[in-house]
């Protein structure tokens, strides 16, 4: 299974916010056993999807130099389940970013209706903590971001398209 919980980036503005969509499909294994007889996308994976968008937003903000990890889900509210056939619109806004961490606010909408609201805190791993060196093998993150079509929509704070960094 690919650990990617966003299907496609639809907007990305460096240091500000990013949006993506997640389609919920009945053929996804993850829907099978979570709640037998009532398939829906587990809320934890909706958090993960928005955390992936947020993590990328934070990483890019720091020019991919930080080892960004999701440290805490400070708040998570879900208003209805995401069922097969639903398309979730994720929007993650960078609330603050400092040298030792960042906070992002995420929302998930279905057809314009608020489906979930979360608050995420990211921390930066010091070198030697958990793993040595980069968290991704060279090229892996760039491949993942290309699959999610991030660079099709990503722009810098000045509105100019973002190039794929040599650091990825």
């Amino acid at each position, binding site marked *: 299974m690919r650990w990617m919980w966003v299907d496609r980036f639809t907007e990305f503005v460096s240091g500000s916010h990013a949006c993506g969509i997640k389609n919920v499909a009945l053929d996804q294994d993850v829907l099978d056993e979570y709640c037998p007889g009532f398939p829906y996308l587990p809320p934890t994976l909706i958090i993960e999807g928005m955390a992936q968008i947020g993590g990328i937003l934070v990483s890019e903000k720091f020019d991919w130099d930080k080892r960004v990890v999701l*440290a*805490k889900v400070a*708040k998570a509210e879900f208003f209805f389940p995401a069922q097969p056939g639903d398309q979730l619109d994720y929007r993650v806004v960078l609330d*603050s970013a400092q040298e*030792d961490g960042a906070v992002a606010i995420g929302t998930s909408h279905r057809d314009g209706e608020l489906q979930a609201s979360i608050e995420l*805190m990211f921390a930066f791993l010091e070198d030697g903590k958990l793993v040595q060196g980069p968290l991704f093998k060279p090229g892996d993150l760039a491949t993942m971001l290309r699959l999610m079509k991030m660079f099709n929509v990503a722009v810098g704070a000045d509105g100019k398209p973002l190039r794929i960094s040599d650091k990825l």
Partner: protein
Amino acid sequence: MPATQEEIFEKVQAALIDALGVDENEVTPGATLVGDLGAESIDFLDIVFRLEKAFGISIPREDLSPEDILTNSQYVKDGVVTADGMSKLKSRMPWADLSKFEKNPRVQDFGNLLTVRDMCNYVETKIS
């Protein structure tokens, strides 16, 4: 107009409720962040972010976590903070009530030292 102690407490209380998921009535002045409110190490970064935002201040990380003192063999002997170390801690953290800790200053107990009142005192020193 400078914030009153009550206003400071209310904002600190709100930050701790959001960061730690605790109830308002649990966040009393004497409650310890770790022992009573269940704060874990990552929560301190969250608390710092919230206090900085709520009060428009900048909080140097070593202010609340004097790891440089507590891991320095010049100030710690056999897991206990020396007199020099206590003096250094008091100088770094004049807003904290270290009297209880000073009676038996084991480094391992330092983590459960800070109270809600200490946090309010700290903020007061930063904004005054």
